């Protein structure tokens, strides 16, 4: 469970993400594709070159959805219900990959927030991203 302090840390750090959703999202995806090549198997239809339009577009989608989750931390199941359905019945991404993208997104935060990405901020985000992943996979079976 996220504590009140952790929710505040998440929201405060998220202010640095605003205005950069596309950049941060694209970078997280690129880091994931390079570090964990099997994740590319979900995107055979994408141009996966650095800075491709498809990666930027998808990155923006992902980070915008995370932003929505940040605004509804007390009600993730409801806020992410559509995405839950999508992942369960349509995309069927193996949940292990949510961890990989979550890790890469935290690396993006580390790179752009530097010393502001303190251990306390990191644990808050790790818990938050884990909660998001759980909701995305909750209708799988």
């Amino acid at each position, binding site marked *: 469970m996220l504590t009140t302090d952790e929710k505040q840390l998440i929201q405060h750090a998220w202010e640095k993400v605003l205005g950069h959703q596309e950049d941060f999202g694209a970078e997280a995806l690129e*880091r994931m594709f390079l570090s964990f090549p099997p994740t590319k198997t979900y995107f055979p239809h994408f141009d996966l070159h650095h800075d491709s339009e498809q990666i930027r577009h998808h990155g923006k989608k992902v980070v915008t959805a995370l932003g929505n989750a940040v605004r509804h931390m007390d009600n993730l199941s409801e806020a992410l219900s559509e995405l839950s359905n999508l992942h369960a019945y349509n995309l069927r991404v193996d949940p292990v990959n949510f961890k990989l993208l979550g890790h*890469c997104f*935290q690396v*993006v935060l580390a*790179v752009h927030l530097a010393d502001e*990405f303190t*251990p*306390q901020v*990191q644990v808050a985000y790790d818990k938050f991203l884990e909660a998001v992943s759980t909701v995305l996979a909750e209708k799988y079976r």
Partner: protein
Amino acid sequence: MPLATEADTNTQVLNRGPVSPSRLLIVYPWTQRFFTSFGNLSSPGAILHNEKVHEHGKKVLTSFGEAVKNLDHIKQTFAKLSELHCDKLHVDPENFKLLGNILIIVLGVHFTKEFTPSCQAAWQKLVSAVAHALALGYH
């Protein structure tokens, strides 16, 4: 081996000894189970100022330094440490993966944009190889 060039440029981080273990103990508090003799780990502040954690950080980072210097012989380099972690320290190898990912985050915080996606990919391979080597001696 492309891994070598990328890893080499980041060996300066190995001088920032204390950082990784303290971050590990804060982000994954259950890892504290291995450090009951280290004194006060009761809060992030306590952990960050704990001298024993700092010292241990230096030891761990020195080990990673050995990995970087022996990229083609990682298994041999960590053979004795593997035995130690299994027989004496009784550390679940899962923890090596946790520490590896913490190190990656620390590199991101320290090097920011210089820690490019390609750089990260090289280091992910290294931490994975070290974690694997450390687990090899388990029986």
